[in-house]
């Protein structure tokens, strides 16, 4: 017998190996099935479309922070835009600073357009979709991102 020959195995140990093997395979499958449960099939969550009021309420050149909704609404000569105030690093709420936004948790800094200028944030602050509903009120959809620079004209 050369060293490369597989060791001989008798019927009894083959059968016990096989039964042990199938036992653990079944156990593994059952465990995997069990771990499937905590992974939610639907993600419950509040609707994140926010009515912010009639456009006239916001003067050109103004900015309004909506803390509860987690966004800041801007109006300039070209129109409206909304920037999310949830930090793209680890989800703290950023505050306005002299040159843009600053995050209290890990020191990320963003400029007035939401681009990262310092700290660990991996992405710019998202710009959010602005639109209007039937009665003319402005609506921001915090779940829908638009490219930076997008304005909504009224």
């Amino acid at each position, binding site marked *: 017998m050369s060293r490369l020959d597989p060791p001989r195995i008798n019927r009894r140990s083959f059968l016990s190996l096989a039964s042990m093997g199938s036992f653990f395979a079944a156990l593994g499958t059952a465990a995997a099935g069990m771990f499937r449960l905590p992974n939610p099939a639907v993600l419950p969550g509040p609707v994140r479309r926010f009515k912010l009021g009639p456009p006239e309420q916001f003067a050109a050149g103004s900015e309004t922070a909506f803390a509860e909704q987690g966004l800041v609404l801007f109006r300039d000569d070209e129109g409206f835009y909304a920037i999310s105030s949830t930090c793209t690093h680890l989800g703290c709420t950023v505050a306005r600073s002299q040159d843009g936004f600053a995050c*209290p948790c*890990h020191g990320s800094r963003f400029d007035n357009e939401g681009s*990262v200028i310092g700290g*660990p944030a*991996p992405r710019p602050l998202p710009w959010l979709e602005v639109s209007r509903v039937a009665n003319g009120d402005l609506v921001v959809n915090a779940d829908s991102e638009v490219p930076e620079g997008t304005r909504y004209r009224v």
Partner: protein
Amino acid sequence: MEETATQEFLHNLRTLPHSVKEACFRLGKAPESEREESQATFHNLFLHIHSVRVHLRTLSPTLTFGLGLMATASFVLTLITGVLLMVYYKPSTDLAYQSIKDIHFAVFTGRFIRNIHRWAAQFMVVVVLLHMARVFFTASYKKPREFNWLVGLGLLVITLALSFTGYLLPWDQLAYWAITIGSNIANSPRELTDAIGITKYFDPGGFQKRLLLGANYVGQDALIRFYVLHVFVLPLALVTLLGVHFWRIRKDGGLAKPEDPMGGLAEWGGERRPVFEPLATKTYGLMALVKGQRPPVNRGPENTVMSWPRLFWAELSVFMLTVATTLILAFYSDAPLKELANAAIPENPAKAPWYFLGIQELVSYSAFTGGLLIPVIVVVGLALIPFLDRRAGGEGTWFGTKSERAVFWQSFLFALAVTAGMLAFTVNYGWLRNWSPNIHQLWIIVINPGSLLVVIFAGWSILILRRKNSVRLAAVSLFTCFLVGFILLTYFATVHRGPNWHFYWWPSQWPIH
């Protein structure tokens, strides 16, 4: 003369206290002979995890400093006070905060119990870390104790997980924002998958976050998950592993200690004691059932004493010391409770519990690298120690092999200088993003102060490996670097980080906001 049944009954009634006592305590009195002392140990469920005789080195307080036992004691304290807190605590986002407030301000002794729970939990984290350090520096992880080192690491991870899950339960501002940050750290592999653009197909970060929160945001689903983990799953896992840990200590032949010399006389405690000498003509084979290089009978039994009562005195004193310390702390210092959780306004600065602040500092360079990659590297590195450093020697002795102490101090100073230098540099000059805002995120994930520290420490350890030609010394240098880095980062983030994670010399300089 035959006893009547009535007489027998009356007799049994008269001797009732005695016979109940005899049934409960088989010995029924303080043991007087060695035989009775050994019975006292192995007839008792709680004592019989100890061997009947214990080595004098094991009893020496400076071998272990009782740290493992302190961890056990503080865990028992959290267990008892935790059950008491459960009586009033309600795991619902509407009620949780109010119920903690009730416990703190209205429930009789509620505040004290809550404080004990908090202090014992913190104490446990500290002593578990110290215990790990003592096991490392006494080289007690070496064969055959590799497995118990792994079990211990499992205990460390569970201990930290227990602290983290407990942090959410009060549902105050601290809790809410710590969990927001924590769950986003779980989400942070996205930083990497986003950077290379594969998140759509492969999103482990999102999966972990969903598993933790049960939703996209921190709310009721998250609270109930953390509650179940905190009061049931993790304690059960910890108790189970603890059982294995203790069992293995016994099976590995008690605490690690240097071999007693064979035969002749041995120095111990300034005395020369005779050591048992095995006879060449006799077999002691049966004893070989017990694991070890040699059957224990070959070692000098003269260096052991009866466990009863000295070991139990020692253990009881450590236990009482832990309880007393915790009670005093709990009496004088209250557990914090901030305002009700408010999703709109974070605490500023929003700091994690202090033992996670080192990680928070790393996270402020890169969420993925600092929050996940480096901790995983550290845990895997720790787990590998006993399998990479396999040469016997130095077991059960502080800095037991040649030049260990020197390497420890060199590495200590080296790590101190490098970590402090790195922090000073980052505070003064910022990092890649400050110099070039448009840099690709991948660069920041790979090259940041945290990852650089890991690389420098690894390099230092390789240098020691080459220079000193010893795996143990390389391990000592790396472990020391890790310890110093961890402590310094934790200190730095605790004291020198203020609002917006800016650097301040002292908290008193924080701007009023």
